């Protein structure tokens, strides 16, 4: 699952670029239909005074290059963020700082739950992602079964045993929320 911040960035990024293109497109279409007062449809796209101005002011190109470089870095970061997962790295086992701090890598707990799941009859494979906040994690479980008739057994196991085990393992006050995705293997 994608990191929530990346999901938000995708929405805002697409909206900003979409609005920019929409504004540019509407401006050009309006220009071609004589809707704006500044130019007429028979004017060239680039007039001599504009070319002379940009030639005379080198700083304009440098400024544009700096802005473009910053935006390009933003685009590269946006692209790299698509690989960022929502999985937690560590889980906090001790919530009271007066008693010190005990942390455990989240993947260790995830692998332990996966092993627990695959020992149940009917489950061929399982994948567990731990997302949310370190103090109140959410389990996102995908189980794969070859026999579709075992789905109800798997659901009972995931909905009752696994949250109770995870609660005991992580010393949580309540059972953690669970999202189960059922897959039917080939």
């Amino acid at each position, binding site marked *: 699952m994608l990191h929530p911040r990346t999901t938000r960035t995708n929405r805002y990024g697409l909206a900003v670029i979409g609005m920019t293109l929409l504004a540019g497109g509407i401006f050009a279409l309006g220009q071609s239909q004589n809707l704006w007062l500044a130019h007429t449809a028979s004017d060239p796209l680039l007039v001599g005074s504009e070319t002379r101005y940009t030639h005379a002011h080198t700083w304009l190109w440098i400024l544009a290059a700096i802005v473009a470089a910053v*935006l390009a870095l933003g685009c590269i970061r946006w692209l790299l963020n698509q690989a960022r997962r929502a999985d937690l790295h560590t889980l906090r086992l001790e919530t009271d700082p007066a008693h010190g701090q005990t942390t455990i890598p989240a993947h260790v707990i995830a692998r332990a739950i996966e092993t627990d799941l695959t020992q149940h009859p009917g489950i061929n494979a399982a994948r567990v992602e731990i997302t949310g906040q370190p103090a109140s994690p959410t389990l996102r479980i995908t189980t794969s079964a070859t026999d579709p008739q075992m789905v109800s057994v798997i659901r009972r196991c995931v909905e009752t045993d696994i949250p109770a085990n995870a609660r005991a393992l992580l010393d949580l006050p*309540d059972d953690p929320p669970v*999202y189960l995705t*059922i897959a039917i293997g080939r």
Partner: protein
Amino acid sequence: MSPPPSPPRSQRVVPAMVVAAVVGAGLVTFVIDVVAVWTIGHSLIWPYRDMAARMRHTTWSDTPIIAIAAAITAVGVLLLIAAVVPGRKKLLDLDADRPATAAGISARHLRRALRRVTIRLDGVGDVTVNLRRHRAQLDVTTPYRDPGDLAGTVQTSADHYLDDLRLTRPLRTTVRTNHQKSA
């Protein structure tokens, strides 16, 4: 008690990656050209002089310019729609017993499950499952010349399976039987 986790939805990864790559590449080439003009006196990637000369002889009312403007507007609208409309749900929701639990199955896996449940029945040679919004359509091929109430048996089996699965939006099943032609 915590609320159940939200079901996975499409997170616009593909449009975001395409837009970030295209815009990023355009900006990087622009920066390279500005630096090249500054240092070696001419651009390396885009022929700015030719482009400027062409733009001086092209008017806003020229057909290619109107077509490009319309295309840019259309892409802008599509990106805005992709940003504003909530992502498509990837799974069909299932009812859960515990309040903090949610579950789902993809349409592909539900089709596979229904196919596997049906193909075990006596008289079923092959089966194709199509899922619509409110309906599961099972096309059964049978080697029997007289399939009897095979359609009814298949429907009962599929309905029983779907009831057991507890889809939040139940599907109505319809079954069609066809005679399997011998080779």
